[in-house]
């Protein structure tokens, strides 16, 4: 009965997930994030003009929101990176971002090595959505450079933004071109694990479809439009309505499904691969990490069970979102 016990405890404590969002201005990042989680993470947002953009360097802005559905609590942190790619010379625009990622690893390493490990907060970046412009001819030099700089630190999920700019043929061509360029440059993007043999056929099929659609071409919207007699989330043009949740129009649902069903896996890969890479590099470099000098890792299952209960303002609610939690990975690792 162990799996159930762990399940119940984790459900009570809640989950935390940090998603980083990177891409140049005007690619619909904020709209997409709001659409994904059916919430408004940026209520008082002011978009700066060109003159201000010239002055600014890349900023890091983290917003946290608590989402609850069917008793499951998710503490979601979205890390935004305004200013990325805006300047005429973008030479240094990602050092700030890389420092942030490393800082979270550093902090975790420090906490992990401390004496009191009851209250470790995991602020490590579990996933990075990298927004690619649908205009243009594939990846730009900046895109390649950035993804290569972070692919060993975080799970990279490339996303084709504002996909309603493209006809179906253009979209397929772009996806193909991007996949080629990603391989060509040796960029390691996040790979969805194949479905286990004991999974049901539907899930296996779903995984196959998801894998075949990468990179996802998405459209976001927070507006309700009347189309074909029902209200849908979409964008209203004089020539038609683009429905965000229509799989024939774009891959929004696929992106959301991927994120939700693989949230656990994304965290695991961050822990087992990226964090461990950081840790071994860091320790090789030397330097004391804790007052007593011991560096002890935590097992994934232990981390899963030791979560803080968060007291927070009234949680937001997700509608129609299936939260599949795969806990047995963690239990099996025990």
């Amino acid at each position, binding site marked *: 009965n162990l799996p159930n016990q762990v399940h119940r405890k984790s459900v009570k404590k809640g989950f935390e997930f940090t998603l980083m969002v990177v891409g140049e*201005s*005007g690619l619909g990042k904020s709209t997409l994030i709001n659409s994904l989680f059916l919430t408004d993470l940026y209520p008082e947002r002011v*978009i700066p*003009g*060109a*003159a201000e953009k010239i002055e600014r360097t890349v900023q890091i802005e983290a917003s946290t929101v608590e989402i609850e559905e069917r008793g499951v609590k998710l503490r979601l942190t979205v890390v935004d990176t305004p200013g990325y790619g805006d300047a005429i010379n*973008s030479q240094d625009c990602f050092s700030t971002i890389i420092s942030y990622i490393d800082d979270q690893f550093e902090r975790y390493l420090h906490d992990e090595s401390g004496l009191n490990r009851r209250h470790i907060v995991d602020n490590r970046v579990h996933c990075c959505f990298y927004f690619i412009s649908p205009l243009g001819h594939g990846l730009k*030099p900046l895109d390649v450079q950035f993804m290569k700089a972070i692919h060993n630190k975080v799970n990279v999920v490339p996303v084709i933004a504002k996909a309603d700019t493209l006809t179906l043929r253009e979209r397929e061509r772009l996806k193909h071109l991007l996949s080629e360029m990603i391989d060509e440059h040796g960029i390691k993007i996040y790979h969805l694990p194949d479905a286990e043999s004991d999974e049901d056929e539907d899930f296996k099929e779903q995984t196959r479809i998801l894998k075949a659609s990468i990179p996802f071409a998405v459209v976001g919207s927070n507006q309700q439009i009347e189309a074909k007699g029902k209200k849908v989330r979409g964008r209203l043009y004089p020539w038609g309505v683009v429905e965000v949740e229509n799989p024939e129009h774009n891959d929004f649902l696929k992106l959301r499904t991927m994120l939700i069903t693989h949230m656990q896996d994304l965290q695991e890969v961050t822990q087992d691969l990226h964090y461990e890479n950081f840790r071994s590099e860091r320790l090789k470099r030397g330097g004391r990490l804790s007052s007593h000098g011991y560096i002890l890792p935590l097992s994934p299952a232990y981390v899963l069970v030791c979560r803080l209960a968060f007291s927070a303002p009234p949680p937001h609610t997700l509608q129609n979102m299936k939260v599949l939690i795969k806990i047995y990975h963690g239990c099996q690792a025990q």
Partner: protein
Amino acid sequence: VLDLAAVPDTVVSPAVYGEKTGGPVLDFSYVGIDAILEQMRRKAMKQGFELNIMVVGQSGLGKSTLMNTLFKSKVSRKSVLATAQEKIPKTVEIKSISHDIEEKGVRMKLTVIDTPGFGDQINNENCWQPIMKFINDQYEAYLQEEININRKKRIPDSRVHCCIYFIPPTGHCLRPLDVEFMRRLSKVVNIVPVIAKADTLTLEERDFFKQKIREELRANGIDVYPQKEFDEDAEDRMINEKIREMIPFAVVGSDQEYQVNGRRLLGRKTKWGTIEVENIAHCEFAYLRDLLIRTHMQNIKDITSSIHYEMYRVRRLNENNTTVAHANGVPEHHLTAHEM
């Protein structure tokens, strides 16, 4: 359909000559000065018209496609190849393609200068230089012809009359690169900014974006065509104000035809509808085309020759008398020295 033959009719009222008598005017007081219009028209028809348009903008904004759309007769560089290929390849160098178009007895030599997209690199500083150099080179070539002792009867005019600047449809505001580029360009050539691939914006987003762009252009002192200071009279001003309120035009380009309601139209077909390029309810391509060809073509050329070119000429000729002077923002070593 191009309407090059449209020349406004002005009729000199015979009543002007009848002031002294105060009564109805008789035919013998009519001199017939207005006949000169017909002579000019015939000459212009014989000579034909020349127009040089340059397209400038970031990579992938549909510049080459829009050029094809603009002149329907597929004047861009690619139309020379088999039209079976759908994919538009990336432009890698400045290419000038000329086409002779004829309509209703009026001939036009249209030159489209397609430029490679800029702004792709990580460091985009000075990415405007090749284009500035090209524009100045054309002025220089014209100047050299002009100062020749034995001049040609008609100096071939390769000067860029109009530069269409493509703004990416972010929906927010201009990027620092666009501001910098347009600022420099507006000093040497007529710029007509357009919002590229505008089918990515809803009508509300489009209006908001246009407003922000206009604000930014004003704030940065960027004078786009039609420039306020060159409005000749009240009538001009009225017409141009209307245009200034619509700029930048939100355009969509396509050189593919689709069947819509029984007609073959240029457009883009998507799962949620077909965007008709020449439908003003969908995008403002038709306004751009009318501005460039039907209504303001002559004016664009006049401003190029009497304002931009003259400025270049003055600066250039003064250079010989003074020491280092950077003509039109291009470093001196790019300019060829000449003797007068």
